[in-house]
């Protein structure tokens, strides 16, 4: 048998599937909670739940991930050095060791000022032993990588740590974005190494040593070796894998894919079989980077979103809490206490205007971890002691400790990750309804009964009402995303808002109603999809596809992607030559800057050289029978009225090598950029 194991470490769940490559059939699937502190625990649990007999026949493993981005943005983790050449970095993300040296190029790729190799060497010697990774970014290195390459060669001689240059990660203009990408990349290297090692160890323990592939932000695959050089490209791969999974499971090339997870709902679009990409580069931790990633609209609505009744107002908030049903399977004593809350007569409880600090009888807190140097009040300390082993509501804890519940600074401790909030969620609504039951249903029923009572509703009415709120929110997030795609703005005016509300809620205003129809199907991924999506699709008059293995669509996407490596080469006519037919030109590529007598010569060279480099690379990564995709884009412009002729602004040659991974093949040790230089000696 020819099987593949797909893994996806999401924000909430770690999913795994075993798929038969020859039939496309999912043979086994499993889910476990993602363990953020050490991802390997969740991965291990997920794999252990799979059909263990099948693991022997696994020929390839592929993993997508939504790695925690905080560490790289906050500068935690390993220690990174940065050398910038010819320009200061705006220091928008922290680095540990930093130097600016002179050098850099002009827009036409000429040397702007000579490279100060002496200063580079001095810095490199001074940081030896202090840093775990080095980033090098030179001004306009995309027009000429020479200075970055020379400093890299120097660094390789002096240091024994990974070294990454800006031009290796991006061909786009934008010095700061390129530098940010480079720093984040350096910071991620040890993290991705750990992750890869732990997956291999889990598999190795089971006697499987199939090759491991990593999903990139655009949904394609890369080998573990390349992932360790360019980990930044893997960072937003989870959502891209969902999109690819949706395509594989449904066979649809054009569709809107909605993935509702525990924490968020991600909306992405498949166009001609490919995830639509973020053109300007993905934003990671609030910083624009040059990472190619699927453009995904994320909204804070998931199965674990917090539902509260504040006085007589219902609210569905973006805060993620542990559902009652899950908590009660972990701490069975909660069920009895919830029953008591549900059955007692409604009586006044202290509530608050601020929805985060509001005290709810059906919300409990459990201590997650010890304080790490955080200063808290005496009352909070008592509370933490009280909820050390068992969750209590603020009111219960307050009564036991003789402290008014408002005294506790619960939000602060929650945000610091010291306590976990437990409460009513959409998952509990479905449990109470009985439409999706995986954990303790009784606990959910009690919790929902209590909330319903506060609103003066029956439990059935409350469930219907809450589900409608979730559906309307999903519909509105979907519309916002589609509007943005069409108009480039998130700003609906008064009329736009009115039409949107009517399209979502249905019904007439004074004189009119509004119906919005989609021209492509919605594919629902993630669990539990059938509870909400049919009504969302009905609102927009479109087909809804809920594939059989929707709940593990992301893991399916991980295992079915192709290995893709691409290169974008820019060819620009020399100054004053634009209107000449087939003019003299410059060629700017990751392998260097060159000059040609004609554009057609340059294009021919670019195609040939990029093809050779990329084919060699994807084959080294394990691609079988890779194919080349070559695209030439001539950007021309016309002169103003009266001039007639047109001229060539620039030519882009985009080359991609694409191949399905060959299974169970040993991967040779090669490094793209180092081998590149030897092979081509540019």
């Amino acid at each position, binding site marked *: 048998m020819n099987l593949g194991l797909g893994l996806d470490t999401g924000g909430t769940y770690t999913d795994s599937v075993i798929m038969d490559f020859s039939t496309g059939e999912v043979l086994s699937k499993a889910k476990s909670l993602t363990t953020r502190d050490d991802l390997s625990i969740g991965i291990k649990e997920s794999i252990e739940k799979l059909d263990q007999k099948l693991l022997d026949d696994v020929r390839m493993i592929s993993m997508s991930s939504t790695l925690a981005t905080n560490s790289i943005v906050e500068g935690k983790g390993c220690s990174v050095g940065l050398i910038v050449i010819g320009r200061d970095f705006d220091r928008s993300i922290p680095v540990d060791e930093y130097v600016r040296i002179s050098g850099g190029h002009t*827009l036409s790729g000429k040397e*702007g000022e000579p490279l100060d190799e002496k200063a580079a060497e001095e810095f490199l010697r001074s940081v030896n032993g202090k840093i775990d990774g080095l980033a090098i970014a030179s001004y306009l290195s995309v027009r000429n990588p020479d200075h970055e390459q020379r400093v890299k060669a120097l660094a390789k001689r002096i240091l024994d740590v990974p070294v990454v240059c800006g031009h290796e990660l991006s061909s786009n*203009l934008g*010095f700061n974005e390129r530098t940010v990408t480079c720093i984040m990349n350096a910071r991620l290297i040890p993290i991705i190494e750990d992750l890869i090692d732990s997956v291999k160890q889990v598999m190795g323990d089971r006697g499987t040593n199939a090759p491991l592939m990593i999903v990139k932000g655009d949904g394609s695959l890369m080998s573990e070796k390349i992932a360790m050089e360019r980990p930044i490209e893997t960072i937003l791969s989870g959502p891209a894998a969902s999109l690819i999974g949706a395509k594989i499971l449904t066979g649809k090339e054009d569709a809107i894919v909605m993935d509702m997870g525990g924490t968020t709902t991600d909306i992405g679009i498949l166009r001609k079989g490919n995830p639509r990409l973020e053109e300007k580069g993905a934003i990671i931790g609030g910083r624009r980077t040059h990472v190619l990633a699927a453009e995904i609209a994320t909204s804070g609505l998931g199965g674990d979103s917090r539902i509260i009744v504040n006085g007589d107002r219902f609210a569905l908030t973006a805060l993620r809490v542990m559902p009652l049903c899950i908590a009660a399977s972990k701490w069975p004593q909660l069920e009895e206490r919830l029953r008591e809350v549900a059955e007692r007569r409604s009586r006044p409880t202290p509530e608050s205007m601020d929805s985060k600090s509001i005290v709810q009888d059906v919300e409990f807190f459990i201590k997650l971890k010890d304080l790490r140097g955080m200063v808290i009040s005496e009352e909070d300390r008592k509370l933490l002691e009280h909820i050390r082993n068992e969750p209590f509501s603020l009111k219960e804890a307050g009564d036991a400790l003789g402290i008014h519940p408002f005294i506790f600074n619960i939000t602060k401790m929650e945000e610091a990750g010291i306590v976990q909030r437990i409460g009513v969620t959409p998952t509990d609504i479905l449990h109470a309804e009985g439409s999706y039951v995986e954990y303790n249903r009784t606990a959910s029923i009690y919790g929902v009964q209590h909330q319903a009572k506060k609103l003066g509703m029956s439990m059935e009415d409350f469930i219907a009402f809450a589900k409608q709120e979730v559906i309307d929110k999903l519909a509105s997030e979907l519309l916002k995303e589609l509007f943005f795609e069409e108009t480039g703005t998130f700003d609906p005016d008064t009329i736009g808002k009115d039409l949107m509300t009517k399209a979502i809620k249905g019904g007439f205003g004074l004189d009119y109603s509004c119906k919005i129809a989609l021209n492509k199907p919605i594919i629902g991924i993630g669990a539990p999809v059938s509870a909400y999506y049919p009504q969302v699709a009905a609102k927009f008059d479109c087909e809804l596809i809920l594939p059989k293995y929707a709940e593990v669509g992301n893991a399916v996407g991980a295992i079915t992607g192709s290995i893709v490596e691409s290169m974008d080469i820019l060819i620009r006519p020399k*100054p*004053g030559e634009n209107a000449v037919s087939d003019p003299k030109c410059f060629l700017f590529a990751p392998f260097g800057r060159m000059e040609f007598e004609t554009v057609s010569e340059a294009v021919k060279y670019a195609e040939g050289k990029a093809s050779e480099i990329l084919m060699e690379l994807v084959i080294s990564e394990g691609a079988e029978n890779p194919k080349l995709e070559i695209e030439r884009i001539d950007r021309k412009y016309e002169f*103003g009225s009266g*001039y007639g002729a047109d*001229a060539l602004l620039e030519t882009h040659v985009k080359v991609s090598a694409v191949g399905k991974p060959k299974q169970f093949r040993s991967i040779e040790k090669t490094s793209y950029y180092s081998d590149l230089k030897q092979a081509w000696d540019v």
Partner: protein
Amino acid sequence: MSKDEILNKLSDAVVTGKIEQAKAGAKEALAANMEALTAINEGLVKGMSIVGDRYAAHQVYLPQVLMSAHTMYAGLDILLPAIPKAQAENMSRCTVAVVEGDVHDIGKNIVKTMLTAGGYDCIDLGKDVPIEKIVSTAEKEKVKVVALSTLMTPTMDGMKDVVDGLVESGYRSKVKVCIGGPPTSPAFAKEIGADHRDSNAQDCVAWLKKAV
């Protein structure tokens, strides 16, 4: 002389191109304790706007516009140093240049005049300006607008280089790039990633007032 009379004297001087009258008016304005900015905006600039309008309506010829511009600058030479520092810092800055390889600067000069009349503190880089110099000036002087001109087709792609340079330096998002000159077109502006192309200075300033 009343305040209005002084202002009228200034605008009239610019419209008719009388340099000495502009200088005298500027001195009188300061002697009468008028704010320098008021004298500029409601006197000199008002006159220049009238000339700009007439030129756009084909009622006056280019040499007349240039004479008026000359007159305005004579008045500005006296009034600008009198602007309090805090106020001067509030003026939006812009830079104008004829791109590398081209020396035709009449159009650029008209744009500069109208931008000054539109309340901009103009940094004139002149003609045949190296791309790198335009890019670095924009960032160093924190300008809000980069206005580029060329008369010839072979130098047009220098405008694309300026936009590319601004993208690389990270300053592109903080600045509007306007282009002009007979061989350029709105489609060309879009192709190279500039914000705007106009065929006369008056309209360009009007566009900027809305856009910035």
